[in-house]
């Protein structure tokens, strides 16, 4: 069950990464901040779910075999995924100016998406000795996890849009 939750969180995170990258490209094309909020919301929630999934996967491993970390190809790939997107969030925090922040974050998001398949293959070769087997189960747990992700992401998205509106009001008020 825990292992299934882990697999579901990986699928959700992959979807999040794809949506984030597409939103990023759309932002760069249209400069509409809606896409930036979307990319942020989806990346944050995806990262949180992935991290939670890794914990679930680690616990599953411990219960099954006695070790917290089994260097399983899927678990390790997921961990690299977290390392890939955490800097995305850090970068956003490090840039004050909204347009620059959104554009820079969009670039990182696109790079990260291209990297995911390479990482998955590389980690697989490394750990599973060149048998590219990445059997992630597609059980029923996918649906609730994905729905949870979508719900959290839309809440986060709305929150981000509100924060943006408030910021704009605040700056306009400061002028007066």
């Amino acid at each position, binding site marked *: 069950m825990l292992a299934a939750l882990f697999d579901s969180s990986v699928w959700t995170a992959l979807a999040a990464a794809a949506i984030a990258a597409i939103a990023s490209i759309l932002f760069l094309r249209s*400069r509409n*901040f809606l896409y930036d909020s979307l990319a942020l919301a989806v990346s944050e929630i995806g990262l949180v779910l992935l991290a939670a999934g890794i914990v679930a996967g680690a616990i599953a491993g411990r219960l099954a075999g006695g070790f917290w970390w089994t260097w399983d190809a899927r678990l390790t790939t997921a961990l690299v995924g977290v390392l890939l997107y955490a800097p995305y969030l850090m970068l956003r925090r490090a840039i004050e*100016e*909204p*347009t620059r922040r959104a554009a820079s974050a969009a670039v990182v998001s696109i790079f990260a998406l291209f990297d995911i398949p390479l990482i998955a293959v590389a980690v697989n070769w490394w750990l599973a000795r060149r048998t590219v087997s990445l059997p992630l189960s597609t059980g029923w747990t996918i649906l609730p996890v994905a729905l949870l992700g979508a719900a959290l992401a839309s809440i986060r998205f709305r929150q981000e849009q509100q924060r*943006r*509106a408030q*910021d*704009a009001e605040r*700056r*306009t008020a400061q*002028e007066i």
Partner: protein
Amino acid sequence: MSAVAVEGVWKYYGDYPALRDIQLEAAEGACLALIGRNGAGKTTLLRTIAGFSSAQRGKIKIFGREPREAEARRRMGFIGHGISVYDELSALENLTLFGKLYGLPDPKKSANEWLERTGLERVRNGLVREFSRGMRQRLAVARAFLHEPTVLLLDEPFTALDDRAIAVLQRLLREGLAARKTIVMSTHQLREALELATHVALLNRGQLAFHGARTQEMVDDPGYVYARYGEGA
């Protein structure tokens, strides 16, 4: 076709408008003095015209072209707050570098010419980090003029110049205007700028409060435009 055309430009930092509906033109051979308080948006406007950042709404045309097009970039010379030359290279190396980047037929020759015109020929092989403030400023001017730009965008060019550098810059600007170059210059030094200017634009909180020809009243009393059209007018 005007040399510099700013058409309905809005520039946002996030959701905050730093430039609001700016509409102005500078004809060939004009010298536009851009004045305004700190934070009014003069630097933002100049940098947007120069193509360092893009406007979210509206258009900028340099002789009918977008600022980022190669042909427009070739025609523009920019002096910002920094001198934009390398400390660890010599004056000659710096100018030769920019000569090459601008595709000049004989970069070294042009570099030497401009070192002479700015009075730096004796220190041509000296590293910029050893230069005095005034020498650095003169080199910045040489770099901006090196590729014979037809449009000059200057952000507070007279600030922090020593007398010799001011004299060099004023001479070059006068020569440029005589040769029908177009100048857009933001400034706090109203007197020096207004002497050269043919037109004046006043920016107030990102908006254009005044845009028109320079009048005698302005030359006589540099504070006139602020008093008449500025905040609290």
